[in-house]
């Protein structure tokens, strides 16, 4: 009956696939709504597919092993300007420094908020402070970092020019600011994990005569391990993808340029570049003008991000399995 009516009025449901049997009896606004949903969903698929396929195509087209394993050279001739070994090392270095700083601080803060949280107003202030860090644009963090680390006190972290002018740009300073980007993610994930640990585990530990500090160290932090790992991995992804801090706080040198004489410290005190700044500088917006290399580096960057995402899934999947076993 209803189908007949629809046919008589010449009104077909404007949906790509009919959502259910009764769709023909739906009012017009409902059908428009469903159609809009389908349109949005299909557009989303198309955009995703376009980006993924385009970057895959360009990346495989331009990426060669030689690019991955040769140092970049400042040369206008693209056949001589080398690859992006140094930016690749820079990305790994910066990600490591950032997460090494962010992880203990983030876990500590999350533990304090969840397990102690006294006085309450301070806990609330810290929580909203973390939100503020999460919302602060990385470009603002970058130039705040420049302001902070060009103070003479922090001269040991970077290159000091003649006349005691502190340069303020190095792997140390950039990594320190990067840790602020990862911090909210680590705190958030750790806090969720701690909150999801049932309180009887804590009570059992207290009943065995353990102090609160020992409970945190032996029961709660190990229990929150997967959550902490998820937060750290998300944070690493965020650090690896950030450009603003790199362009401002890591100096603009294409190669790793060490400062001082101590073997590892000299690299960390020196300037360099990462894949993100390499992509930026080789795009038409920078000076490099080598879109092929920018595509190749962007492809490597996406692969790193995908691997990190996959790692998050793997960690999360293990947690789910563990949850089911319980």
């Amino acid at each position, binding site marked *: 009956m209803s189908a007949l009516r629809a046919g008589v009025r010449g009104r077909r449901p404007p949906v790509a696939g009919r959502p259910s049997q009764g769709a023909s009896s739906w009012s017009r606004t409902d059908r428009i709504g469903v159609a809009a949903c389908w349109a949005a969903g299909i557009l989303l698929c198309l955009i*995703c597919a376009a*980006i993924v396929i385009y970057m895959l195509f360009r990346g495989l087209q331009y990426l060669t092993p030689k690019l991955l394993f040769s140092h970049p050279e400042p040369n206008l001739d693209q056949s001589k300007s080398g690859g992006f070994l140094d930016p690749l090392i820079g990305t790994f270095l910066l990600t490591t420094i950032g997460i090494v700083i962010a992880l203990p601080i983030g876990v500590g803060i999350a533990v*304090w908020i969840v397990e102690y949280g006294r006085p309450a107003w301070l806990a609330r202030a810290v929580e909203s402070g973390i939100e503020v*860090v999460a919302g602060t644009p990385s470009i603002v963090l970058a130039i705040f970092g420049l302001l902070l680390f060009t103070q003479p006190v922090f001269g040991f972290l970077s290159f000091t020019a003649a006349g005691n002018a502190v340069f303020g740009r190095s792997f140390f300073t950039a990594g320190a600011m990067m840790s602020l980007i990862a911090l909210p993610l680590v705190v958030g994930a750790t806090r969720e994990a701690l909150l999801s640990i049932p309180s009887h585990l804590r009570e059992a530990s207290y009943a065995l005569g353990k102090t609160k*500090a020992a409970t945190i160290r032996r029961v709660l932090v190990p229990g929150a391990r997967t959550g902490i790992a998820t937060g750290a991995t998300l944070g690493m992804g965020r650090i690896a993808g950030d450009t603003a801090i790199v362009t401002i706080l890591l100096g603009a040198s294409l190669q790793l340029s060490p400062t001082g004489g101590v073997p590892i410290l000299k690299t960390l005190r020196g300037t360099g570049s990462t894949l993100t700044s390499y992509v930026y500088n080789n795009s038409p917006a920078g000076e490099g003008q080598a*879109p092929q290399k920018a595509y190749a580096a962007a492809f490597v960057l996406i692969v790193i991000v995908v691997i990190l995402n996959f790692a998050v899934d793997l960690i999360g999947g293990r947690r789910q399995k563990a949850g089911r076993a319980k």
Partner: protein
Amino acid sequence: MRSSRSRRLISGFGTWSDQRAERTLGALASTVLILILGMIVFVFAKAWPSFSHNGLAWFGPGGNVDVQLGQIFKSPSDSQHWVYTMHAWPLLYATALTTVAAVVLGVVFAVLASIFIVEFAPPFMRTVLDPVVRLLAAVPSVVYGLIGILVLVPFVGNHVISPHEQSSVAYVVQLTGASLIVAVVILTVMITPIMIAIITDALRAVPTGWSEGALALGVNRWRVMWTIVVRAARPAIVAAIVLATARALGEAIMLSMVSGSVAFAPNPLDGFLFFLEPLRPLAATIVDNAEGLSVPPFAQTIYAFAAVLLVSSVALSLGGWAAKRPMRRFGVRL
């Protein structure tokens, strides 16, 4: 084995007394809080000369920002004669324009797409879309910028803008393809996955009893989603808008790549050309002018831009924090 373990336990008792642990962790948390307050104070202290020399005119229109920046950069080394004149309206306008346009487009799209993913998508699409959306949210902004500057900008420049249109405004601004529309499109693509991720989580967290009850009363699936589930998830939508706005506001690299990097205020009265005119938001201005930070008055002006961004993002974060709180009723923690 066992004895070493118990020794470790005992040493744990010794070094980490309860009170000391609380105090250490509390001090750590307070340090971060102090760092944030320090950031706000530092940036404002550095930016103050630029604000105080211009007064409220700093926020107003007048003159060409690029020319003003050039004059500030060339100001004499004598601190008595530093130039501070800055009327930053075109930058503020560009920031507001790109952010609002991208967020409005993005939120409509994200709500519809989230409903699609949660309710109407066939299972195979759902399993594909979930990870892909998260991947898109994690793609670095410089990659979006690269696609924009190498694909969309040349396309708009060569196929959308006609030579006639280019010559008609050549005496005011050059139309190269880097434009408002490209900036907004890419910004929308960038922030939508973040919103979709939050909104789908919230839609899934709405108790199924509510939607099942409505379905049992004969309400159709669309109405159930629209009038019950989406409505219950409103706080999450607000939180998603806030997060996306913060992201769009602070996006520097991508916008400096595709927006044309000209401090021009697109004029809505230009009709269709409005969408093709270049602009430059605050964050992109900071990136573009980072080399000038060694000149004190110039640096102070740049820090003034940063201060404006910082105030907006702090306000947004606190707003978002407040908006997220009602969601905890459903046990959703974002």
